[in-house]
């Protein structure tokens, strides 16, 4: 493992971990947030996509003459025209013949796919014109089901690619077969994670303007996409410095999905073509069906080999992911979980078969946790099954399998080294809180009253720090071994401090994070630090807030930049006072010599900005420092046998959830929820708590409510609005009690780990565990998420029917 990129800074802290208002909140509370839909440029035109009615069809002809005749319509563009002018969008998997353009070319591959785009002087006119476009389709056979798509006889979504298989990789880490042969007990099971997503309340929106004088494309977008400007430039055949993405756009929720590359490339092309600003703002129907933001849809087949005492020796896991009609980054979502494939457990050998197939569904995009939540659900189900098979307590089986605190740093079979943790202590705290809350007694009381009641258990990890090692692991043509982030700190001639961040944010309070991190180093009030977001041409490299990484990566970059700035202050003082730097004391922006002579902040600034003769020889005037921060432990390519160190830090969470089910209605009702959370040093307590609570709410949605369903006969999406894609309201989310533990990461500046995916990574597993605990007296398992009331009540009804028969 590499040494930390920057030396750790350990407490007691002045600002880190203290209650502090989130600076972003003020503008949001007053309605002054500035979102993509708020960008309004003079002469702006409005683009709306025409969407396919068929899941698979050949496009025979498109007649736009009636639409073009409508007053106010400026253009109608088809896929064939667009494809001639741009490069295909980037694929994650190595699948060069799975070509993807913003508009369908020759063939549509899912109902909802964009076939053409109308540009008009108002959105309303564009929508009216869309109705007037006549498309002649020749329907083709289609495939929706992931297992069916595996069949070589299934209709190929991309005939040129030859099959529907995008990714088919076998990994064997350790002596799996020997462990299975030697183990006294084995079991096998299947669990299914249904297709859901994070569905932000803001749809995707983008506005682009081509400045023909500067030959520069300006882009304002609701975006959370690594390498976004690069991807636009490549697709539009522009040099990278001809695309300027504005980062000072508030993003109205993302949680992974606001990728929008097809939207931005299309609008960028239109802005150049029409020499006018063009906006594309999805409505909800467009977002749900053609926004390409649906999440993993995964079938897990798992085998475990274990001892009579419950210790799991080896695991075989096959994960089949139905990624929908195009590749995008989605196959990589099978790769990230490799970095925590054994969760918090000391499982010594693992075989993993990662399979991604295309189908005629909406393409999959990155969703919170990047595939980790489904994998955690599959693994946690297994631990519950082991306990059930042996008649052991589920908590005790976890304790027996946990990696012990003294074993860290701990390398798992697939090559990642976990940084730190104490899973026994974390579970112990959560269990103590649950006992204090009386949830075990409450379950028994409910059962005695004739209800089905169960307690769910999940103990899972949140890999954080967002390295992208799964890219070279799953795509040999990809050699990405850095996923850097950056910060710049300047002190102006008035002494005011400004720090930068180089991406958009979607509610993660990054401006507050940077202010606190810089303030901690410079020992000045965070409120004195302004945090700004330069546009992409004024920015240092960033990889956007993906992979629970910003506390680690942006926090690390901000600390390093502030340290470099502080070093400049120290050098100035040493020279001016004629004292060795090592003898100086820095406190609160003032530098003092042992003889009590000192330079205060204003004087240091004065020297740096005005009095060159007082600067150390060879130094630059002014005060500015920047840092580009490499992911701690990153930088290595995978080994030949498919091992790679994935993410640097590993947060842990455990959930204990009490669920009651009315046996007739089948609706799981969450009565109590206790979470133990360990993300190392907490920088902003309110922010971390909010993300965990929000992640739990997302988990409740994925486990109980949300699914993008499709009609088997017609291939049509049947969850295309908020009426048929139910999401948790305040009624569905219980009060959650969070108990904290802190095992600092040795790899990060403050000991912090990530928390952006917390709650979501264990919540669904905990709910599945709770429902199955409730149904255990009936001998039932519910092995598919979401666990809709109808599925539960039908399963219960089947058992009672059998009893009477």
């Amino acid at each position, binding site marked *: 493992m590499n040494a930390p990129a920057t030396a750790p800074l350990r407490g007691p802290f002045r600002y880190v971990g203290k209650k502090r208002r989130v600076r972003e909140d003020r503008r949001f*509370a007053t309605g002054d947030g500035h979102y993509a839909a708020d960008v309004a440029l003079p002469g702006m035109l409005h683009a709306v996509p025409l969407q396919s009615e068929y899941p698979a069809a050949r496009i025979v002809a498109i007649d736009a003459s009636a639409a073009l005749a409508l007053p106010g319509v400026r253009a109608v563009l088809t896929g064939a025209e667009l494809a001639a002018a741009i490069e295909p969008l980037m694929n994650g998997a190595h699948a060069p013949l799975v070509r993807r353009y913003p508009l369908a070319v020759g063939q549509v591959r899912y109902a909802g796919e964009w076939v053409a785009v109308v540009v008009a002087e108002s959105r*309303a006119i564009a929508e009216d014109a869309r109705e007037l476009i006549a498309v002649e389709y020749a329907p083709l056979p289609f495939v929706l089901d992931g297992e069916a798509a595996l069949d070589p006889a299934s209709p190929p979504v991309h005939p040129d690619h030859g099959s529907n298989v995008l990714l088919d990789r076998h990994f064997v880490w350790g002596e799996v077969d020997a462990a299975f042969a030697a183990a006294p007990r084995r079991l096998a099971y299947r669990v299914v994670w249904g297709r859901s997503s994070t569905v932000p*309340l*803001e749809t995707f929106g983008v506005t682009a303007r081509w400045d023909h004088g500067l030959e520069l494309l300006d882009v304002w977008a609701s975006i959370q996409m690594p390498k976004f400007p690069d991807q636009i430039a490549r697709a539009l055949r522009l040099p990278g410095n001809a695309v300027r993405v504005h980062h000072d756009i508030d993003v109205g929720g993302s949680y992974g999905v606001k990728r929008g590359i097809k939207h931005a490339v299309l609008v960028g092309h239109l802005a150049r073509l029409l020499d006018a600003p063009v906006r594309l703002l999805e409505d909800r129907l467009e977002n749900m069906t053609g926004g390409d933001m649906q999440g993993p849809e995964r079938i897990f087949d798992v085998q475990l080999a274990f001892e009579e005492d419950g210790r799991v020796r080896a695991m075989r896991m096959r994960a089949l992911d139905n990624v929908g009609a195009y590749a995008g980054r989605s196959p990589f979502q099978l790769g990230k979980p490799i970095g925590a494939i054994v969760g918090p457990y000391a499982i010594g050998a693992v075989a993993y078969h990662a399979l991604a197939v295309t189908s005629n569904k909406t393409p999959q995009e990155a969703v919170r946790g990047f595939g980790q939540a489904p994998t955690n659900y599959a693994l946690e189900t297994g631990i519950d099954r082991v306990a059930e098979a042996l008649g052991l307590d589920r908590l005790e089986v976890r304790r027996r399998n946990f990696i012990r605190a003294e074993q860290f740093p701990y390398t798992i079979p697939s090559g990642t080294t976990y940084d730190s943790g104490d899973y026994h202590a974390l579970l112990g705290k959560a269990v103590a809180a649950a006992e204090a809350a009386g949830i075990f007694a409450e379950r028994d009381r409910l059962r005695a009253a004739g209800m089905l009641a169960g307690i769910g258990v999940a103990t899972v990890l949140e890999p954080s720090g967002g390295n992208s090692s799964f890219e070279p692991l799953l795509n040999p043509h990809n050699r990405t071994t850095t996923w850097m982030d950056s910060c710049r700190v300047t002190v102006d001639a008035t002494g005011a401090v400004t720090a930068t961040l180089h991406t958009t944010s979607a509610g993660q309070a990054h401006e507050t994070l940077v202010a606190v991190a810089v303030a901690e180093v410079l020992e000045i009030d965070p409120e004195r630090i302004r945090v700004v977001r330069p546009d992409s041409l004024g920015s240092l490299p960033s990889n956007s807030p993906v992979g629970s990484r910003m506390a680690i990566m942006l926090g690390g970059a901000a600390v390093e930049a502030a340290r470099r700035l502080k070093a400049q202050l120290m050098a100035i003082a040493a020279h001016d006072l004629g004292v060795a730097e090592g003898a100086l004391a820095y406190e609160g922006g003032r530098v003092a010599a042992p003889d009590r002579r000192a330079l205060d902040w204003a004087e240091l600034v004065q020297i740096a900005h005005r009095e060159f003769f007082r600067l150390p020889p060879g130094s630059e005037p002014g005060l500015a420092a920047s840092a580009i921060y490499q992911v701690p432990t990153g930088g290595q390519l995978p080994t030949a046998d498919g091992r790679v160190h994935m993410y640097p830090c590993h947060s842990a969470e455990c959930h204990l959830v009490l669920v009651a089910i009315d046996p007739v209605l089948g609706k799981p009702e969450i009565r109590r929820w206790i979470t133990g959370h360990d993300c190392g040093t907490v920088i902003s307590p309110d922010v971390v708590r*909010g993300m965990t609570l929000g992640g*739990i709410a997302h988990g409740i949605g994925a486990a109980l409510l949300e699914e993008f369903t499709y009609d088997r006969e017609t291939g049509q999406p049947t969850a295309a*609005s908020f009426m048929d894609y139910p999401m948790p309201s305040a*009624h569905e989310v219980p*009060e959650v009690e969070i108990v904290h533990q802190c095992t600092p990461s040795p790899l990060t500046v403050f000991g912090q780990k990530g928390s952006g995916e917390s709650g979501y990574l264990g919540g669904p597993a905990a709910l599945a565990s709770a429902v199955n605990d409730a149904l255990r007296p009936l001998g039932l398992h519910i092995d598919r998420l979401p666990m809709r009331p109808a599925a539960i009540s039908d399963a219960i009804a089947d058992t009672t029917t059998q009893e009477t028969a």
Partner: protein
Amino acid sequence: MELTLTVNGRARRVQVEDRCTLLDCLRETLRLTGTRAGCEHGVCGTCTVLLDGEPVRSCLVLAAQAEGSAVTTIEGVAPAPGELSVVQDAFCEAHGMQCGYCTPGMVLTAEALLAGNPAPTREEIVEAISGNLCRCTGYGQIVEAVELAAVRLRSANTRPAAARMEPAK
């Protein structure tokens, strides 16, 4: 069609298409962009504004239907530019938001609740905000923000912003 709308206490003459929703009129015609579009079919509550003090979904109300009523948007909540209402301040103190997109609707819903019920129970708060979806927070800190606002309004002997908005005559 030409309409006169009373928005945040000011009479505004607007020219809109008959089919124009109150949401689009506020955002596009009056450039009051604090009101935001969520689902545009009346489920999520993101676009909530107050009509004569009552929360409504501005995506389901035609601009023409709002004529003769007092419309309050998030821009009309603070007592003065640069200041915060007690409810807004409580949302900041409790971090009752993350991305901020649902926040204007949440704040207005809370203002309306507290105008009619100065001491709501937790259940009453949950019921009041249950028509407003939030995808970031899991609602915990939003409920706490409303609880905090209620306490502060009671102890400060101050009326919530919604109570200042009299129906248009």
